[in-house]
């Protein structure tokens, strides 16, 4: 066995496990990957060695406890490259909507004894805590994204950044535009490409699980939604969703939160 194989780790923080499942759903490619690299920490798949030094650490999940903030710093110190996988790790995820509410009060409402629960009031992306080398967007990410990232980092070629918007993927696939055809409040015009425009292909509006595209004009799309007849609160909910804490979406959404409800 070749000892010089690159070493990788997969770490979990507050998340649903859906992004690491992209590894476990690789099928035979997972076995090939395990030949090409040494998987030193990936608790769900078997290997447990969280403090091992690695070439690439993949991070799933957001930071929402003081211990996790500390843990991600240790991971950073042990890793040559650190890659966030998915919305949770990259923008804080759906659970980051708590950042806009009183999380303490929420804890008390769910748990009879909130004092047992160490929790920060916020759910924050990994980049709020440590330097991130590469961000993979999506809720969940795809196996293709993971393999491409691994390859580019290990061969030191610049990683591919998706610059297009979901809108463009629709055009490539010749999907009927759901906003034009059905007046659906589709977030495709401001969402990073990468999924292959799955939702419009299923005749529904994109809800931006791949996060904001570069330079999204969220405000102008929000006004267009109002033009479609959505009340400000409904427009706010469109943006305050899976990637609601991403600054471009938070701004467009929160701006409308103050207005009277529909």
């Amino acid at each position, binding site marked *: 066995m070749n000892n010089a194989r690159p070493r990788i780790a997969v770490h979990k923080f507050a998340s649903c496990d859906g992004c690491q499942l992209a590894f476990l759903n690789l099928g*035979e490619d997972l076995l090939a990957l395990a030949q090409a690299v040494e998987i030193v920490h990936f608790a769900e798949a078997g290997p447990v060695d969280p403090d091992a030094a690695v070439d690439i650490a993949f991070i799933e999940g957001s930071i929402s406890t003081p211990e996790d903030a500390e843990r991600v710093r240790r991971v950073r110190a042990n890793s040559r490259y650190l890659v966030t996988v998915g919305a949770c790790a990259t923008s804080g995820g759906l659970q980051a909507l*708590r950042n806009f509410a009183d999380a303490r009060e929420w*804890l008390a409402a769910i748990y*009879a004894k909130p004092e047992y629960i160490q929790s920060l009031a916020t759910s924050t992306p990994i980049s709020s805590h440590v330097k991130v080398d590469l961000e993979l967007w999506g809720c*969940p990410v795809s196996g293709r994204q993971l393999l491409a990232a691994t390859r580019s980092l290990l061969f030191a070629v610049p990683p591919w950044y998706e610059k297009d918007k979901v809108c463009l993927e629709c055009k490539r696939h010749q999907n009927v535009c759901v906003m034009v055809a059905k007046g659906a409040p589709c977030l495709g015009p401001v969402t990073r490409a990468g999924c292959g425009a799955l939702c419009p292909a299923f005749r529904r509006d994109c809800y931006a*699980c791949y996060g904001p595209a570069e330079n999204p004009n969220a405000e102008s799309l929000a006004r267009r939604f109002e033009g479609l007849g959505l009340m400000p609160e409904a427009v706010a909910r469109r943006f305050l*969703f899976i990637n609601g804490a991403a600054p471009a979406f938070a701004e467009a959404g929160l701006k409308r939160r103050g207005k009277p409800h529909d």
Partner: protein
Amino acid sequence: MTEKREIPIHVPVLARVEGEGTLELRVRDGTIEELRLRIFEPPRMFEKLLEGRDYAEVPDMVARICGICPVAYQMSAVHAIESLFGAQPGPWVRDMRRLFYCGEWIQSHSLHIHMLAAPDFLGSASIVEMARGHAAEVRRGLKLQALGNDIIRLLGARSVHPVGARVGGFHRAPARAQADALREKLAAALPEAEALVRWTAALDLPADEQDFTAVSLRHPREYPMNEGRLVSSRGLDIAVSEFESRFVEHQEAHSTALHSLLDGQPYLVGPLARLNLNFDRLPSPVRTLADSLDVKFPSRNMYHSIVARALEIVVAMREAIRILEAYEEPVSAYVGVSPRAGAGYGCTEAPRGILWQRYDIDATGKIAAARIVPPTSQNQARMEADLRSSLQSLGTQQGEAALRRRGERVIRNYDPCISCATHFLDLRVRELKHG
């Protein structure tokens, strides 16, 4: 005065479970005094996140609780909401939901059998290691997992957080040609799923009879997935809406997961409970297959869970093939619904057991309150009771590594999905001795 000596041991543990947790033991003079399966779910607080959202947003939100069983979360949610609104999506939607669920059972059970459980029985540390000596079995497992994912993709575009389900039905109906192609693939793989059942039953499964209360859904004709009444091996038989009158959740100091008890007692949900309570609802070819095994059901041996999972893969493959054979493209893939104020209840059989949900909704369709009771919190008290007796009978003098290995194996029988957990797994044994 008695001097207590505490030896805290801190070892990373519980590999190959979904999510991360800690097992803690306190041993005094060879006896386990305290045992805690700690699930640190840094609370993602979904129930509160749902408040104020529109009912139509619920399926896409609750999917994010668990990447391994998003279909289950979506299905319990749409049933809860539709029951309140009085919506009748009709037979096409009903069949497609069953098909969707078959995909999740096949995917989740295959993943658990091959990636999480089987390495235990074959002395490997992971599927990667197992692939060296058992390449054909691993390949078969990966193939079945992929087929489960294909079914979910047919109706949901992707297998994790599928985008196809909505209140009232599905956003889009599959084309006939796609349905036919998938049916052919499933039919070709059915013998492999049956071989998987025989393979699991031939594993060296420990003999370990235990007393437990099994809980599942029960349907008048079918092996339960989306519909039925809540029944137990001790005679419980209630409607899904009556869940709260018998099942109570409480919080333990050592866990952020709420624990659920039935009439104050631990209980089991999941494949073994389901099969024990619904053996007579197996399609007859599966019944014949089950009867031909050395492992018999109903069973009180938790190690038989792996065989129950494999049998359920065959149930799901056959159901999927049956539904796809009769597939016709509908006029519409969903029915429209109109909101109504009140409380709606839904309960479906997630791969790991019953997943119960309740939504309080106002007249405009906004969620006022939500309650979600996942299978893992229901199994938690049962898992702890099992761990205590298994580790005690193994003998606490066995040392940390042996305790840890056994503890992990016991836990894997339940396939806990600590989907929201983090904090990697430790085993902490605290030894108290008289000094």
